[in-house]
């Protein structure tokens, strides 16, 4: 028998990028910005900006690591920042602290890096999201799969990534629904374990579908 729960309403979202007017030309300036900027700016540069490049995987998902690699040519630090695992943090504040610690530690070891000017500046941004309902609502896993096959990738990004702003850094709307409405803890965990940075969004769609279809079969 198909297990049904409260409906899951598929939303989609679009972002308008807000420019803060702040920029960093050196690592020291980036560190100052990191200490002072809003949480939503951190969220934007770590989670949101890669949405517009969702069709492929860059070396670093975080804009901070990407800039340190390509503009400052400091691959050691870029790798350290890039290796920070989202799953190790409980909040944006926590993640910010870790990034600051990694950079400060690096500067202690390599003080000459402090004032080296990047080839291009880092511009601090944040974004405003406009979320809207799509025509799709589902009550069970079978219906979920049907919609998942056709919904836009920005809808997937909204429920899988942007949801972290509302629900907490570790989870997402799909897992929340599987857990609280369909009582499927195992499936909820499997979706939370998807590494959002290692796959383009179209591949993430296939991964989610595969995991849900496996759940239906068991």
């Amino acid at each position: 028998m198909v297990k049904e729960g409260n409906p899951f309403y598929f939303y989609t979202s679009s972002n308008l990028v807000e420019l803060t007017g702040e920029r960093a030309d050196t690592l020291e300036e980036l560190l100052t910005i990191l200490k002072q900027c809003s949480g939503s700016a951190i969220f934007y540069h770590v989670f949101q900006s890669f949405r517009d490049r969702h069709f492929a995987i860059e070396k670093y998902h975080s804009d901070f690591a990407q800039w340190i690699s390509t503009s400052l040519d400091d691959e050691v630090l870029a790798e350290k920042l890039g290796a920070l695992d989202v799953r190790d943090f409980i909040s944006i504040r926590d993640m910010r602290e870790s990034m600051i610690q990694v950079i400060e530690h690096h500067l202690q070891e390599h003080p000459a890096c402090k004032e080296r000017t990047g080839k291009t500046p880092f511009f601090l941004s944040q974004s405003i999201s406009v979320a809207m309902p799509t025509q799709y609502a589902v009550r069970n896993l079978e219906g979920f799969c049907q919609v998942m096959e056709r919904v836009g990738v920005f809808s997937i990004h909204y429920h899988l990534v942007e949801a972290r702003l509302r629900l907490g850094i570790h989870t997402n709307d799909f897992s929340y629904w599987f857990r609280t409405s369909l009582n499927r803890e195992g499936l909820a965990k499997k979706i939370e374990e998807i590494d959002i940075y290692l796959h383009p969004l179209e591949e993430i769609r296939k991964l989610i579908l595969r995991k849900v279809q496996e759940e239906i079969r068991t």
Partner: protein
Amino acid sequence: MAFVSLTDYEPIVGKQCIEELYLLAEGLKGKRIKMVNSTAVGGGVAEILNRIIPLLNDLGITTLWTVIKGGEDFFEVTKKIHNALHGEGLSFPPRMKEIFLEVSRENLRYIDLEQDVIVIHDPQPIVCIESKDRTHAKWVWRCHIDISNPNEEVWDFLKGYVEHYDVALFSSPRFSKQLSIPQFLFFPSIDPLSDKNRDLEPEFINQVLDRFHIPQDKPIVTQISRFDRLKDPLGVIQAYRLAKRYTDCRLILAGGGASDDPEGELVLDEVRAEAKGDPDIHILSLLPTSSLEINALQRASTLILQKSIREGFGLTVTEALWKKKPTIGSAVGGIPAQIIPNFTGALVHSIEGTAYQIRYLLSNPEIARKLGECGHEYVKEEFLITQALRRYLLLFHVLSHPGERIIFL
């Protein structure tokens, strides 16, 4: 220009994208928008307004367009202001300010301000904000030009007006300023259905190359730019020569701006002299109406260069990326916003760097192909007219929900 409907873009950007635009427009139907600029034809701003206003109206958002009027003396002043914002030295005597203010205020008498949103494009009509208290409209200043290194006296004068607007829009993060009002990123855009960017039949491309006597016997490296020293055409020839020592290729330098610009004619002569009769260098002085020819030259190219010394946003880069061409661009103006190094193209800082990237990409066609593919996808996500439309729709929602970071429709 034939009327283009939003659904005409569906085969290019996909059904979901068009559906989302309709969803975004749903709650905005009946809103009244006024665009104000200083010219109805010619120039990038008029071109984008000509294309985007019908699309906004197609979505049920009543969008009107007013062009301000002024005499020769007014436009001489605004031209000087424009150049000063690009960093040119300028003394800004009281008489110039008087002309600017008088004509602007005269225009205000004829502009219908009964709108929901008024978008003022560039500095020419900026003084319209003096009427802010006479309306309930939200006021937006859309700055299309690079003001990253402005003449400070002129910028200080304009900033006094800018900060009375509700928001400001800039074409690149590097063009933004520290302001007391919110500012948003509005990338310029290209129209994939225009003659400069639409798909072409291979036969037409071959005809164009035959007409310009360009054999397709070896890789073609191309820079499309007007003949202007800031586009560094001589540097392009030097980079081509350095690269050609290792990898045989042809170079096309094509652009307009020579026939009606004495300095352009001079630069064209310098370029011809530097080419020294090399049969593999093709120098083409094109008419402003040569959109289809430019399209064909870009599509026939193996690599595209934009080795500018200074640049606005650099829409020639956008056009090249859209055509899936591996693109090498200088790290100036809006080019770094488009070329993410080793992902959507190659970013360079010197003639030697340009030469190396030409060699590298001609020798590694698979890497070049991958860059071209990613560049195309990136343009689809960020720099097409449908994205410009999306940003306007988002902006109108944001203006109706001040202070909210997540807006639920």
